[in-house]
């Protein structure tokens, strides 16, 4: 049924439809609408789940580690500072091979206090062993959250579904909310491969000396590889039941493009428009949206950018002392590929600053005019301020 839904509520509806059994969360703007709605569903019986109102994000994830180890379907949501507080347990959840699903509203890290869109929070967690997906709109948020449970349970890894603060979390859009029966067909009840069990008492997460730790880590990488393959199959099933598919990456007019813009999250929607207008003016431009960040879809990226002469990555995030984080990944993916296009890295929209059509178009022209990338990253739209640090 088509409904006008806030992005946050697209998450809540998906979690309801996925029949999560234990939910635990701690409030932080702009994640609150997600968990308030779920709290309501648990209270009024719409969802048959336990909602643990814990005293911190750290405990929210710790509680889910306990619950998921007991073989039930689990969900949490957080953002920014809350995600950072969870850091230790992000590693724990993946190391323990628990299929926990999290909605992560991308918000800037303090200081200064800033509650607006910025992906540095989740990208800073890239090495924690979580599958990471970045969504563009409300429909994708709803579909991806449902899929996240299927994916997580298939490979026994936690999945983080990312959505931009406010631009997505607080924006109302028409969203098709599937019926319960269809979702049940796509996502059957969780059948855990292992769980705390009186009949078969085992110790989980115990001491793992050097003679076994490395193999355990390698298993996680094997699961990541499997996720890449399974995602494809899962999307086919989803499409056959629910009629939609989003893709690990989406290539828009890339086949004959000379310059390909690479984006993730909501800036993709604006870029679609920019690309359409530039095409009308005769510019050979394409757009590559990256949805799946971990595991990073290296081969897809190589294939889709093979014929371009330049790629320009727009990052609403930054790794200090290096560059935009998607740009780093793109460079790493392409570097062993002979004749790959040069990678331009642009930083825009940090802390919720608008990435307007003008900004994106400007990035296109800058890339077109340049003969080779001059910086690790170029910051676009910086205001004139006093940058002096460490100078007397």
């Amino acid at each position: 049924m088509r409904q006008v839904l806030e992005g946050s509520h697209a998450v809540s509806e998906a979690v309801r439809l996925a029949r999560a059994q234990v939910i635990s969360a701690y409030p932080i703007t702009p994640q609150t609408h997600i968990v308030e709605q779920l709290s309501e569903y648990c209270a009024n019986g719409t969802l048959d789940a336990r909602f643990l109102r814990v005293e911190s994000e750290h405990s929210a994830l710790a509680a889910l580690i306990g619950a998921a180890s007991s073989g039930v379907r689990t969900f949490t949501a957080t953002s920014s500072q809350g995600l950072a507080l969870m850091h230790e347990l992000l590693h724990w959840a993946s190391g323990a091979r628990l299929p926990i699903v999290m909605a992560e509203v991308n918000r800037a890290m303090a200081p200064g206090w800033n509650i607006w869109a910025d992906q540095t929070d989740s990208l800073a967690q890239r090495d924690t062993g979580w599958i990471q997906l970045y969504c563009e709109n409300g429909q994708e948020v709803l579909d991806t959250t449902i899929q996240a449970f299927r994916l997580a349970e298939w490979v026994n890894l936690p999945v983080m579904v990312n959505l931009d603060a406010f631009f997505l979390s607080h924006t109302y859009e028409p969203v098709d909310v599937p019926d319960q029966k269809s979702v049940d067909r796509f996502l059957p009840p969780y059948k855990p491969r292992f769980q705390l069990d009186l009949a078969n008492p085992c110790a989980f997460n115990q001491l793992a000396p050097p003679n076994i730790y490395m193999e355990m880590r390698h298993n996680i990488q094997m699961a990541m590889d499997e996720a890449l393959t399974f995602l494809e199959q899962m999307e086919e099933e989803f499409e056959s039941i629910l009629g939609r598919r989003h893709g690990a990456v989406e290539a828009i007019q890339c086949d004959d493009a000379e310059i390909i813009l690479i984006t993730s999250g909501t800036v993709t929607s604006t870029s679609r428009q920019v690309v359409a207008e530039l095409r009308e003016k005769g510019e050979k431009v394409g757009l590559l949206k990256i949805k799946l960040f971990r595991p990073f879809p290296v081969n897809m990226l190589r294939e889709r950018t093979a014929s371009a002469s330049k790629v320009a990555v727009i990052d609403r995030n930054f790794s200090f002392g290096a560059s935009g984080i998607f740009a780093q990944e793109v460079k790493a993916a392409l570097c062993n590929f002979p004749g790959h296009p040069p990678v331009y890295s642009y930083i825009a929209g940090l802390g919720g600053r608008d990435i307007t059509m003008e900004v994106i178009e400007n990035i296109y022209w800058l890339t077109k005019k340049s003969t080779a990338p001059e910086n690790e990253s170029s910051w676009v739209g910086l205001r004139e301020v006093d940058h002096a640090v460490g100078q007397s």
Partner: protein
Amino acid sequence: MQLDNLNPEHMCSGHVGCPGCGAAIAMRFVLKALGDKTMMVIPACCWSIIAGSYPQSALKIPVLHTAFETGGAAASGVRAAQDIKGDTETTVVTWAGDGGTFDIGFQALSGAVERNENFIYFCYDNEAYMNTGVQRSSSTPYGAWTTTTPGQHWKKLRKKNIVEVLVAHRIPYAATASIAFPEDLMAKVEKAKSMTGSRFIHIFSSCPTGWGMPSEMSIKIARMAVQTTIFPLYEVEDGLRYTINYTPKGYLVNEYFRLQGRFKHLTEEDLDSIQEMVDEDWNLLLRKAGISLETS
């Protein structure tokens, strides 16, 4: 001992605790009382090691090893999952050291008991961070040497009174127990098991390695801690009703301190002032239990 025959064992030989480890003795008695319908959460502590490394386990119950500060929260999640699965027979317990309870795990513990989560939290107290090599915790007593309170910088602050902190949460049951009083310990575990809501049991667990004493002294020292009222045995129901389970016969603290390497630097004057502190704490407890000083 007769107790050995009464209840089945749920702990195997072959654990890797030090000889005379009080924490190992505590676990053994607690599991005897809890029985096999128990799921245990163990945050980082000596017991993360004692239980053995992959693929072996010294415990015959399901165990979830978790991060250091998550004892209260992880057990809440295990309980919630059992509830949603309709399992009412499993007792969910946390087994944590003093560091994981008094310090880094304190927030999660306070949160869990404020929510009155239906579980038993056991703190085995060896009065320092032993896993990492005897560093001070807020449970380390006044006067003790540790590797982070060395030489003349021995700890000059009191031990945190964790039971009173839990009592202030008005939880259904909070109790102290000792490895030197197994009948009392097991009775308390059985009592706690029969109740619902958050229950807390604080077990004095000697540590020969960290306290600088021979392994055969573990039980004797634990007994002396109770006899001197350094570690009184008592229980509190609903945060209100105090029962003192052992009435001491006027032992002084000196010998307790003299038998342990961690206190060997203390002078007679130091011990006198410690005796005053111990008396003061004991009298405070008596008042809370409604026992007037004259009649005690």
